[in-house]
């Protein structure tokens, strides 16, 4: 009797699945614990590191983060699902974020978005078939003095013109920033020490 209900009782994580986060990634995550009074306080930095290490925050990764910090997995799901920066499904190697707030819209952001869609052949929230690019729009990236803006990886592209979009997307270094970096929130790729 009743409607068919989505099963939440069975775990979609395969029983025999090996860990996704390496021991080094977990150690890095635990390193945030002494910056906060509670274990939960380290969660958002942990999710950043986990996302950068694993590519996205699958249920399995969320569970591993929960185990690593010794907190409730439901709390990890609660926090992760709130924030737009955290991806719970697979994303491309690079994420193209086109700003859609007021200044960028006035300065031609819609045309830039169309150009990106056309160049990559995908729509919003999609990923290219070669797994290279995902495309989303976001609210104000605080680059309004150089509108319209587009964030690729860590680099903010400014005063983007639709006709320049193909060249920007073709550039292998389009996500590299021009300043020395801090590795504090970086992911730990497998095999790294």
């Amino acid at each position, binding site marked *: 009797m009743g*409607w*068919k209900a989505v099963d939440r009782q069975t775990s979609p994580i395969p029983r025999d699945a090996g860990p996704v986060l390496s021991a080094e990634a977990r150690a890095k995550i635990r390193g945030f614990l002494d*910056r*906060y*009074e*509670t274990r*939960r*306080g*380290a*969660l*958002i*930095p942990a*999710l*950043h590191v986990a996302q950068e290490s694993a590519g996205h925050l699958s249920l399995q990764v969320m569970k591993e983060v929960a185990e690593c910090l010794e*907190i409730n997995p439901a*709390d990890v799901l*609660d*926090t992760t*699902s*709130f*924030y*737009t*920066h*955290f991806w719970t499904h697979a994303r491309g190697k690079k994420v193209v*974020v086109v700003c*859609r*707030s*007021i*200044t960028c*819209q*006035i*300065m031609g952001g819609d045309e830039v978005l169309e150009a990106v869609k056309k160049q990559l052949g995908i729509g919003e929230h999609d990923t290219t078939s070669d797994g290279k690019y995902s495309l989303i729009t*976001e*609210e*104000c*990236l*605080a*680059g*309004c*003095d*150089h*509108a319209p803006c587009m*964030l690729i*990886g*860590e*680099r*903010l592209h400014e005063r983007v013109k639709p006709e320049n979009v193909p060249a920007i997307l073709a550039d292998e270094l389009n996500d590299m*920033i*021009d*300043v*020395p*970096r*801090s590795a*504090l*929130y970086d992911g730990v790729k497998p095999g790294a020490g």
Partner: protein
Amino acid sequence: MATFQPVLTRNYGVKDSHLLSVYREHGGYEALSKALAMGAENVVEEVKRAELRGRGGAGFPAGVKWGFLPPNRKVTYLCVNCDEAEPPTFKDRTLVEKDPHQLIEGILITGYATRTTAAYIYMRAEFHRQFHVMQRAVDEAYAANLIGPNIMGSDFKMDIYIHRGAGAYVCGEETGLMESIEGRRGWPRIKPPFPAVEGLFGKPTVVNNVETLCCVKHIIEEGADWFLGIGPKGSKGPKLFAVSGPVRRPGVYEAAMDITCRDLVFGEDFAQGLTEGEELKGVLPGGISMGILGGDELDCKLDFDDVRRYRLLGLGTGAAVVVPKRTDIRTVLLNVARFFAHESCGQCTQCREGTGWMAKIASRIASGAGRIEDLDLLVEISNSMGMMPGMNICGLSDGAGWVVRSVVEKFRGELEEKIKAQPAGAAERALRQINPAYYEGAARVSAR
């Protein structure tokens, strides 16, 4: 309008201004020395005397805020609000990337004055470049004993951590920010208890904006009298104004708050007017939450109080975007309504459902299927939400309602004209297509 030597943007043009050595060459960390010699209570007094009002949007007097901390506290936290997500604000971004040590010095002075144990710089996730610049500046400062167990050789100790956000505008609200640092969803808290008494991790906490803390450094360096010498009554000190849109010189400008909107957009020392071929329709001068000024309202002074005479919610962040005549006002309406629907945290009923509904209505109007009664409906929904009338827990709802109402009221003429210009029956047809069940009275078939 009075002029003064800029202080906040003083180092913007200096090469490598983000480096500690360069900052020091330009007088950096002398204010901190001075503060350490003055004593904490005197620092608080000086800031109170200077009438420094918060530059994050609310304009609450900083010294008064610090005064709420209970005297017998053991732990104090300072949260630095670098979430800057209010469209079209970008002033804190420039402060952080061009002069990070100015902020660090402001944090240290404030931390010293309030006996802070640890400061968290809450920086939004999208500030990638700014994070790297800031973190390396913090690392430099630690290495130079400017942060840590015995700052500048004194017994003042404090830590500074950068806590990166993850893409939520509501985490710029002070209690939403604290929830986020604690690893939770950014749902603002009910008050009481107030953050000064029970804030981050339940401890006494002060939350201040980046620009406010930078002002603290200058108040200690130059003195409260200098600060009081800038700007009109009730709105003292230099303020950063960000201008964007189709203007000749978009960017950040440091000015006293007796500047008018007209000066800011058209002034020779400021944005220098609109670009070739563009004409002004309106300006949103405070960040979108504050509302819109019509083309005939540009003499509005951009201080904390005069703005209310023009029915703006407040000065906000002082970030102005110029809306040109070529931009359909329906696009503006949709843009702001959609922003708040996307960013509402979802706790309070009116904001959660109201912002979603307003976005749906604005979307329909923008697609050419609006009705005149939709405009009245939008105003009614706006009036039903807000922290100030007590309806909701946080100020996001005030902004959401205010801007929609502001655009509808001040540009009613254009909106009605555009709606009437829709092909006859367009709204009716579109509604039948969008929501056939509503119109045919059929029950929704469950296909899940």
